[in-house]
C-alpha cells in the first residue's frame, strides 16, 4: 500500500473493488480475509478489516458467519454504476482544467478523443 495516498483502508477497499470490476474477483467468490490482506500488503490487520467492513457496509461484500466474506451478487453492476457517475468528476474535470490552461477548446478536445478512439 502507498503511504502517499491517504488512508490505507480506502486503498484496500478500492483494490478489492477493482478486482470485482475487472472480473478477477467474481460474484459469490470469497474475498481475501483481513489477515491475508494484512500479510500481503504488510499493513495492520485492523486497517485491512476496516477496508473490508466498508465494503460490507456498501453492500459489495457480505459476511458468512465463521466462513468469511463473499462478493455480493450484483456488486459488479453496482460498482460500475457508481464509477460511471464519478467518472466525469475524476477524469473529465482534470482534463478540462488542463485543456483550459493550454487554451484547447472543448471542440478540439472532442476531436482528440475521436481520433484516439480510431487508433
Amino acid at each position: 500500500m502507498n503511504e502517499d495516498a491517504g488512508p490505507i483502508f480506502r486503498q484496500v477497499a478500492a483494490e478489492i473493488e477493482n478486482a470485482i470490476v475487472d472480473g478477477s474477483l467474481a460474484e459469490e467468490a470469497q474475498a481475501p480475509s483481513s489477515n491475508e490482506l494484512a500479510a500481503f500488503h504488510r499493513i495492520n490487520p485492523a486497517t485491512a478489516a476496516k477496508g473490508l467492513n466498508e465494503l460490507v457496509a456498501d453492500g459489495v461484500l457480505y459476511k458468512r458467519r465463521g466462513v468469511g466474506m463473499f462478493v455480493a451478487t450484483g456488486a459488479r453492476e453496482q460498482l460500475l454504476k457508481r464509477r460511471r457517475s464519478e467518472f466525469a468528476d475524476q477524469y473529465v474535470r482534470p482534463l478540462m482544467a488542463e485543456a483550459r490552461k493550454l487554451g484547447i477548446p472543448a471542440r478540439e478536445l472532442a476531436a482528440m478523443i475521436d481520433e484516439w478512439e480510431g487508433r
Partner: protein
Amino acid sequence: MTTGSTTAAVTLQDITMRFREHTALDGITTTFEKDAITGLLGRNGAGKTTLMQLVAGHRVPTSGSVRVFGGNPYEHDVVLRDICFIKEGQRYPDHFRVRDALSVASMLFPGWDADLAASLLRDFDLPAKRTIKKLSRGMTSAVGIVIGLASRAPLTVFDEPYLGLDAVARQLFYDRLIADYAENPRTVVLSTHLIEEIAPLLERVLLIDRGRVLLDADSESLRDSAVTVSGPRDKVLEFARQHELLHTEALGGHARAVVRIREAAARRAAAGSGLAVEPTPLQQLVVAMSLQDPADRALHLAPSTDLEEVS
C-alpha cells in the same frame, strides 16, 4: 468506524520524570489501546525510552501514575509477567549463548511459544549455540526480536528493535510481527525512527517531543487529516490560515504547506481554489510537527483527538 475496543492496556496519568536538572517527561497523559500496535515516535531525546522504561516497570515516575492492565508494573511480579520489554542494545551475560537467552525467556513468560522461537531462529539465521557476545550488532538485535515475538506477552514493548538489522531482516520482522499478531492479538508498543517503513503496521501513533505529547491519534485518521497543498503562495497561505499550518516552504511565488484540515470539505475547497492537494504521509506529518516552533503548538496540544469525523 470503530478501531477496536476502547479499553486501555496501559494508562499513563500526568507522568513527569526528572533526572536532576533535566525533565525527560513533562506531564504525559495517554493510554495504549489494548490489542493495538502503537508507534511511539519522536526525535532523539524526546523521552521515548524513558516512557517505555516506566511502562515496563523499570523506573518509577517522579510524579503521576502508571497502570498496566490495571496494576502498577513497578516491582509487581503479577503485572511484570505480562510485559516483555525489548530494550535497545540489550546486554546479556558474557557466557550466554543464544539458546540460553531463549531458555531464560521461556521461564519468564507464561505465554512463551517454543515452536515460534525455533522457527524465528531459522528465519533470522541465528546460531543457537553461538555466544551472544560474539554476534554482530544486527544478529544481537534479532535475538531481541525473537524473544519479543515468541514471548507472546500481552504487552510487548520494542525500543528501536532493529539496530544494525539489514533491510531483509527488518522486512522479516514486519512480516512475522503481522502474521503472529493477526493470529494472537496483543498490545504492542514500538519506538522507531524508521517511520516510513513501520507506518502501515501502526494502528495508533503517539508522537512526543521534549517530554510532551504532540500527537495521539489513530494513524488512519491522521492520514486523512493531513494534506500537503501547493500553488500560488498567497492562495496557499490563505488556505493554511483557515486550518492548522504545520510547515511551509516557498520558492518565489510558489509555496507548499503541510496543513491539518478540520473537515473533509476543506480538501475540495482547496482543490476548487486551484491548489494542488495531496495526502501527507505519516512520516512527513511527524517531521512537520516535530519541526514546528514549540511556541506555535498551543493550537493542537489537545490530546487524544480522534479525527474519525474527518472521513
